[in-house]
């Protein structure tokens, strides 16, 4: 597993992360991410066969709330920080495709 990351990889990742990076940034990140990943691969020195992945450092489970309705913010507070609004709605440039994942 090579730690190097190609320019193309960087472009792909930038697209996934919705960052319209400049050419100079792509160049810079290609080098930097490569060396960071190379360092990170140090983890491979360790045998983790049979080790449980630790997603939560505290052993907690079943944190649930009762189904009770609470007051919402109201339209004005909801939209107070909106870069653009139209009436009671957030306003965005027209969405042409329907790529909602839900």
């Amino acid at each position: 597993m090579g730690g190097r990351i190609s320019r193309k990889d960087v472009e792909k990742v930038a697209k996934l992360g919705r960052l319209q990076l400049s050419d100079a940034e792509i160049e810079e990140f290609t080098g930097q991410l490569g060396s960071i990943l190379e360092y990170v691969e140090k983890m491979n020195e360790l045998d983790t066969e049979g080790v449980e992945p630790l997603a939560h450092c505290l052993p907690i489970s079943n944190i649930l709330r009762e189904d009770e309705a609470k007051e919402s913010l109201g339209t004005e507070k909801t939209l107070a920080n909106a870069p653009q609004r139209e009436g009671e709605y957030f306003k965005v440039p027209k969405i042409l495709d329907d790529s909602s994942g839900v």
Partner: protein
Amino acid sequence: MEDGLINLGLVELRDKIASGEVKSIEAVEAVFGAIDKYEPTVGAYISTFKEQAIGKAKEVDQKIASGQKIGALGGVPVAIKDNMCTTFGATTCASKILEKFHAPYNSTAVQKLLDADAVIIGKTNLDEFAMGSSTENSGLKQTVNPWDVQRVPGGSSGGSAAAIAARLCYGALGSDTGGSIRQPCSFCGVVGLKPTYGRVSRYGLVAYGSSLDQIGPITKNVADAALLMNVISGHDAADSTSVSEDKAPVVDYLGEIDEGVEGLKIAVAPQLNAGADESVRKSVEEAIETYKKNGAKVIEVEMPHLDYAIAVYYVIATAEASSNLARYDGVHYGHRTVEPKDYVEVYSKSREEAFGQEVKRRIMLGTYALSSGYYDAYYLKALKVRNLIRQDFAKVFEKCDCIMMPVSPTTAFKIGEKTADPLQMYLADIYTIAVNLAGIPGVSIPCGFDNDKLPIGLQILAPAFEEQKLVRIARMYESQTDHHKQVPPLTTNL
């Protein structure tokens, strides 16, 4: 060393206000006097709330005058890191993307300060979204180290640490994801405590690495930190990762702080410490000697997996961050690019324009680590090694009360000195990062100075939810030294 109102500890001031010896308004005026004088140089604050603070101080003074009960922080001026949501002022995270963001709610920790009658002075600078170790990554301003204005205050809670060091408030909140409370406290010669994960509610703390983030106090001394812990600790139903009182009851951290710990057993890892600068190593060793003189036993231990902590951290924290920061997209709040050609550009250009380099770098790294084909090799592997790291700590705590080590391998470095090589900057987090991965509490306390008169911090780590023991151990050392009473030259020279 200097006496006077501005150098009082938080506990001392609280008591004097409560007894009527000092008025809250006097303390607030003293703070704003110091801010007028030193803040233009230090740059600790992103925003201050003078009018609101005066109003609150008068309200507390009134309460005291009329014999009403006041909260545990009655009338004491405090500051909060600007990554905690407040209904007053902006909540910027030192990012251009949130520069004008006004939260409609208070974070739980801030609300607890307000409920305890604290006077909130302002919101302090940080590395953008708490990503960094020098506060140089702030998208809004530069904070300098009050001990040497050519140097960084550390980070990411650099604003809070510098504010305490420069006497710009009496206590502050920071947040710690990989050392962001402890390291700047070490660099600025103040006390900083990172609580156990789950001890303090994260509700309203703008997330960086959700499984690692924790709010904690930054103060002039250990007792002050204990008092702030009393106020901010506890279960919060709004945070599913906050621990319930029946599993880990909140105790009075301040009450018996001078009791010490009898038969104290300290673990040290000499191999690990060897990587620190000589001055740092020496100071830490001397501090441990002080404990020994007081009857403590020192046990040498090995924690073989700690060497991998940085690698693990920069996968887990950035993976979580890449997802946590996806919401800053210019749709519902925050910066939006001026003329997007379509809605996709609202995302990609707004984010490109408003995020700083370090934030972009971490989003890129985290996105990559989670992406198809790399998940197992990076993210899953990191979670497994994280478990090994936690086990290392668990083994040590079976036979020791605490672990002692440096906070940082160096003292404060020069501004701009390390910005060119991000990996080198990351590697300096070697002593602080594993603590967050294991979720345990740790404190940084002043333990000396190097030849340049730059502060050095001693780090003490304890098992999960043993903050009470932790502050007692820290207090044992503090009570016999006066490093924490030193005042940076800035505040006397200017």
